[in-house]
């Protein structure tokens, strides 16, 4: 059987043919692939998803501000990607394990990260967000795509684990990564491993159209979701700005993985509205009209419109949610301003789990050196 090169028929940049449950105008619609996974979604749940998105956006704004004020070394905004992050993460359960990239603020928040944890990495105080096992979520991965393999290995570990009651473990590992990452060898190797071993892993590709200045068309000639089936992994291409689509798609993927049917792949078609990081200048490579277009597809507005239309959200409730988000942002600011850098000699801690003679010598030598300054000050 010959496959024609699948290029122009549907370019990677196509955002029309995506599965969605809420239109950009805030209308609840039906989708054959997703409907089944959203039948029980009521206004209360939708409000929760909305609240998480509002909190994510508010923290993101605060993060950018803190960076501009010199409190954070760097920040990777998630503005515009709240739905893809919150929707998919909300479908998980606590015992699942998430391996995110650096841009998954909403995922970390949903997984229980505290305001302190959210800033410590970007402030340059720590390299992780605390104990990953406490929240079933690894810290932000900087090496593009590396975490997809960790998720697969974790999933292979799940396959080899039993629950305390002796039954087969049915946790799921999840990897989040970007469209740029899809070009990495590791992501492709991860899909080979996942498919070959039928590992319970879900790949969530947050296609925000850009890898720093490189448009997604540089990574792929056709939609990224269509790669997965060639590895033997079923995929869904969803409107990444539709939080309900993310939630439903993730339920589909999780159910497959939990039942032993193997991996699944979700391409959440979204858009990075801000710069790549606070060090980036998107005006050098991006058409302002594109940004305007995507403003009309804002993930928060549509849910707000829908909730209001249903009478599930009024001005007072919206103000409450905003106030709660402000409160959280204030906590993050306070955590940032009161952060105490740990003692210098702790840089030698935890390089190894067991004593290492070479490093112990260096620590002793540096301690003696530092002690010299203390004597000078006497």
């Amino acid at each position: 059987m010959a496959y024609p090169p699948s290029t122009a028929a549907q370019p990677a940049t196509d955002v029309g043919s995506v599965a969605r449950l809420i239109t950009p105008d805030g209308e609840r619609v039906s989708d054959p692939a997703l409907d089944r996974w959203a039948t029980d979604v009521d206004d209360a749940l939708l409000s929760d998803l909305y609240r998480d998105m509002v909190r994510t956006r508010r923290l993101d704004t605060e993060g950018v501000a803190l960076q501009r004020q010199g409190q954070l070394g760097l920040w990777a905004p998630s503005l515009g990607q709240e739905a893809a992050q919150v929707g998919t993460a909300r479908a998980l359960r606590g015992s699942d394990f998430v391996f995110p990239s650096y841009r998954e603020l909403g995922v970390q928040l949903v997984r229980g990260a505290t305001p302190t944890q959210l800033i410590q990495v970007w402030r340059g105080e720590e390299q992780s967000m605390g104990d990953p096992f406490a929240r079933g979520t690894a810290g932000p991965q900087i090496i593009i795509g590396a975490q997809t393999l960790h998720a697969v290995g974790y999933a292979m570990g799940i396959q080899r684990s039993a629950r305390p009651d002796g039954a087969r473990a049915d946790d799921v590992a999840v990897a989040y990564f970007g469209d740029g990452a899809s070009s990495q060898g590791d992501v492709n190797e991860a899909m080979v491993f996942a498919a070959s071993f039928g590992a319970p892993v879900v790949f969530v590709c947050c296609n925000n159209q850009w890898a720093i200045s490189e448009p997604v068309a540089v990574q792929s000639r056709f939609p990224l979701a269509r790669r997965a089936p060639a590895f033997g992994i079923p995929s869904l291409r969803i409107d990444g700005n539709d939080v309900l689509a993310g939630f439903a798609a993730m339920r589909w993927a999780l159910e497959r993985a939990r039942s032993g049917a193997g991996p699944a792949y979700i391409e959440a078609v979204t858009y990075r509205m801000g710069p790549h990081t606070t060090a980036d200048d998107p005006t050098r490579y991006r058409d302002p009209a594109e940004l305007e277009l995507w403003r009309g597809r804002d993930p928060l507005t549509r849910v707000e419109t829908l909730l209001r239309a249903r009478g599930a959200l009024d001005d007072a409730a919206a103000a409450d949610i905003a106030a709660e988000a402000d409160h959280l942002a204030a906590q993050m600011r306070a955590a940032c301003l009161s952060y105490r850098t740990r003692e210098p000699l702790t840089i030698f801690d935890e390089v190894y789990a067991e004593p290492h003679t070479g490093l112990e010598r260096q620590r002793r030598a540096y301690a003696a050196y530092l002690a010299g300054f203390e004597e000078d000050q006497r």
Partner: protein
Amino acid sequence: MTELTMAKALNAALDRVLTDDPAVLLLGEDIGALGGVFRVTDGLLAGHGAARVIDTPLAESGIMGAAVGMAFRGFRPVVELQFDGFVYPAFDQIVCQVAKMHYRTRGAVRMPLTVRVPWAGGVGAAEHHSESPEAYFVHTSGLRVVAVSNPADAYLMLRQAIASDDPVVFFEPKRLYHAKGEVDLDADLADAPPMGLARIVREGTDATIVTYGAQVTTALQAATAAEDDGLSLEVIDLRSLSPVDYDTVAASVRKTGRVVITHEAPGEAGVGAEVSAGITERCFHHLEAPPVRVTGHDIPYPPAKLERHHLPDLDRILDAVDRVLQRPNSLTGVEL
């Protein structure tokens, strides 16, 4: 005591650890039915099943990254990379993920994984099958790096590496896979010298030869030859390249006052350079002559028919011994 080849000793170690510790998993290319390209995993699939002896896709970064995830889930993966030259595709995961995860998470996540690397030359192999990449890993903190030189050490040190809560890059000289030696299969890890300790393989008083891996055999041959010449050479097998056991090395150099360091990896910024610097810092006033390195040349590994010119042999080591003894040698009168 049982006489075993190094390959069989490693096999026995893996078999034992798989039996003793359900958290141990083996991953690699061709390690199942074939038993590995060097047969080190021979019979382990039959004995322990495909859930624990995992034939992987042909993707080194994939193997290493998956091992990282398994360690997250509480397993102790033992990875076999088929040949030294194929460690490079996995290098990113080893250096950026394996080595740093414990530090990055301030100890919350351990990476108790072992990377077995069939290693180095002297077996007439094809390109990419004879490399000595150890310096890359020694340069990376968070890793422990060891190299074995005999079946008894292979049996004990592999078990120690797997038992370690730190990641260990474990170099196995291909040249010695079929070399035999006595192995105590009942040996208890509790009685074994720690994995990071060097071993004095032969005592001597005139000069110290510091080496590791298959070069230990060559250094011993040199020491035997030098004996005929009335010289008494001490030979130290480093065993651990990170950390280096400077206590043992420096004590020996303080005794002999002269040191030759030899390995088959290229010399530039290699383990020998590090050891030479470490000795100089510690023993400068005990040295009767500058430390001398005898290493592979700073060239890509040459074709098999020429590799004997690259690998430091007994005569090159003895020539270096002459240098540290300030006796006539090949470099007498030559400015470097």
